[in-house]
């Protein structure tokens, strides 16, 4: 049953842009766990809580063994009471602690919305800066094996809309560790939304403690023809799509924002200014989701650079179905990203303009 276990059995693509100083291959789960261990060892105020963080399966392996090492007071299981426990984490953070709350799936965060949105993300502002909430909440998107409507939602589109909440979606082992540590170090509430497909990867990760800046994206592949902004595990899919299209002479630039809020707008705009063509790929629902904001932002700030309509590749606007034939239609990856790239490439501005104008205005 591939549902609850994942093997780290593939290597990340060689993006060629990080971690020059190590040759150490580490699995995604171990990268996270190493970050947690280092944070727990460094700062006695850090603690880890969540349903099943002390399980043998240990949150996809990310928390395995931590309770043995750091004790039951610093790594502990919680009741199934997401509303209260999120508030407890907020309160502990106000009391000087640095909780890392593993929430398992984003679906369950819907029970924690009041504490996350009404409380954690407003607390600093609401009191004019007198207090702050150094809280990390982590959740991992489920996918496949009939996880269905309530166990596989990619809900970043909701949290992305909330001021006061930082939102991280890593895609590499290196980033998973460095951004987790940055989140723990941050004095504000930070939500990390991970994806179970990331846990298939092994990648280069230095042993030392390091943090990555929250708000800085990364170019995963340079190209001059078209820009793809891809989120989380779709970075790998976009990269592969780009490599394949290179054979056809299309040079794709792949951008991994790494953190959605704050978003590295400059990096994206710079690329769009060069290419004039854009594809945005996100695992969440299309309408009102992450692709909408990034597209709207580009369409406004790089208006005159755009040579073609921005293509948005996102999940269809339906709940996730259980059946695998339906899942196949629901999920997407390399193939659909390739199609979108080609669509953006093949758009001919001038001819389209006249064609569309005549068609529309006849209708209008």
């Amino acid at each position, binding site marked *: *049953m591939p*549902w*609850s276990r994942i093997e780290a059995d593939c290597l990340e693509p060689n993006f060629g842009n990080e971690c020059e100083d190590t040759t150490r291959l580490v699995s995604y789960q171990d990268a996270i766990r190493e970050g947690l261990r280092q944070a727990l060892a460094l700062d006695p105020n850090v603690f880890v809580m969540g*349903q*099943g963080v002390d*399980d*043998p*399966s240990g949150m996809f392996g990310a928390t395995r063994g931590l309770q043995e090492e750091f004790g039951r007071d610093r790594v502990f*299981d*919680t*009741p*199934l*009471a*997401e*509303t*209260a426990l999120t508030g407890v984490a907020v309160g502990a953070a106000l009391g000087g602690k640095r909780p890392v709350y593993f929430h398992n799936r984003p*679906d*369950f965060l819907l*029970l924690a919305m009041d504490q996350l949105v009404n409380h954690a993300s407003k607390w600093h502002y609401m009191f004019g800066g007198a207090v702050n909430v150094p809280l990390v909440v982590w959740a991992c998107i489920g996918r496949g*094996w*009939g*996880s*269905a*409507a*309530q*166990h596989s939602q990619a809900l970043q589109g909701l949290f992305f809309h909330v001021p006061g909440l930082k939102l991280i979606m890593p895609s590499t082992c290196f980033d998973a560790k460095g951004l987790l540590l940055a989140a723990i170090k941050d004095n504000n509430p930070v939500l990390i939304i991970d994806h179970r497909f990331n846990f298939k990867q092994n990648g280069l990760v230095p042993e030392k403690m390091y943090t990555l800046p929250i708000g800085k994206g990364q170019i995963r592949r340079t190209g001059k023809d078209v820009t793809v902004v891809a989120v989380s595990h779709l970075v790998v899919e976009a990269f592969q799509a780009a490599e394949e299209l290179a054979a056809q002479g299309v040079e794709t630039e792949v951008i991994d924002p790494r953190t959605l809020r704050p978003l590295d707008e400059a990096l994206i705009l710079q690329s769009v200014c060069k290419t004039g063509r854009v594809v945005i790929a996100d695992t969440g629902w299309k309408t009102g989701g992450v692709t909408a904001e990034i597209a709207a932002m580009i369409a406004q700030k790089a208006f005159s650079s755009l040579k073609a309509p921005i293509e948005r590749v996102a999940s*269809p*606007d*339906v*709940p996730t*179905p*259980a*059946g*695998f*034939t*339906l899942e*196949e*239609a*629901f999920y997407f990856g390399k193939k659909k990203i390739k199609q979108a790239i080609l669509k953006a490439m093949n758009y001919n501005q001038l001819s389209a303009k006249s064609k569309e104008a005549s068609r529309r205005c006849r209708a209008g």
Partner: protein
Amino acid sequence: MNPGVEKKKEMFYAMLRIRRIQERIESCYLQDEMKTPVHLYIGQEAIAVGVCSALKKDDYISSNHRSHGHYLAKGGDLRALIAELHCKKEGCSKGYGGSMHLVDTSIGHLGSSSIVGGGIPIGTGLALASKMNGGQRVSAVFFGDGAADEGVLYESINFAMLKTLPAVYILENNHWSVCSHVSARKAGDNIFHQALPDLLMSRKIDGNNILAVYQAALEAIERARRGSGPSFLECETYRILGHAGCESQDPEGYRDCAEVKAWKKKCPVDNFREQLLKEKTMTPAEITAMEIKIEIEIDDAFAFARKSPLPAGRELENHLFCE
């Protein structure tokens, strides 16, 4: 009150049938034809059967991720269940739901939620609808000890007491929520046992004893139909297998093998079989006949499921809205 010979046989048959169905699912599961996370009900059959045997066909049930037992005990269609586990078009949820999302409106089962505790207020709402219509349909709400951690239970029971709703809350305390023991999540006894008895009838029952469950359920259901309000039945039981999938997929090391062993001895099906044989309610031959009948039915259901067509990808956007 002794349920009488026929009722006992029926209940035994229902338990045995659920057990065999679960076993068959388990034994086929690693073939990967059922691509959906199954949460088997083995060891808890007395609860669903005990309660549902006391319900009428048009009474409501609310269920959770561990859904097969409730669905079958209430009378849900077996073929449609097995087809759903195969994510087929003729599944009860047409392949959109999978194992955790079963439905059969013909028996008052309006859908199970896989959000722990999610079905509790919904079942309470069904009781409200019933009360508004005269209160003759009882709403039986099944949930686990994990769900009892959620505040929505407190809110729901308060509301049911406030409006004297015909609701029966059935806590299946199988001691575990995934790999978390109830003692890691819950302080002390379930507080609802301490509610005022006229507001909430409360019982703690041996959930592996079908007659005890049936008896308590009868009482609770009778109370509900009389318009006297909700009840809370905590049924002590045990999750014999792992949280999800089959036995071999249970991770090791989170619970004591001796504990599992001890509970296996308290098997509700075996014990009831022995009792029925001892008191001569049934003969071994009758049981053999049951086993055969069940096996045929299961074979048929699996055959049906395998033959049933798969939903096509282009149907993905169906059923988002109801016209």
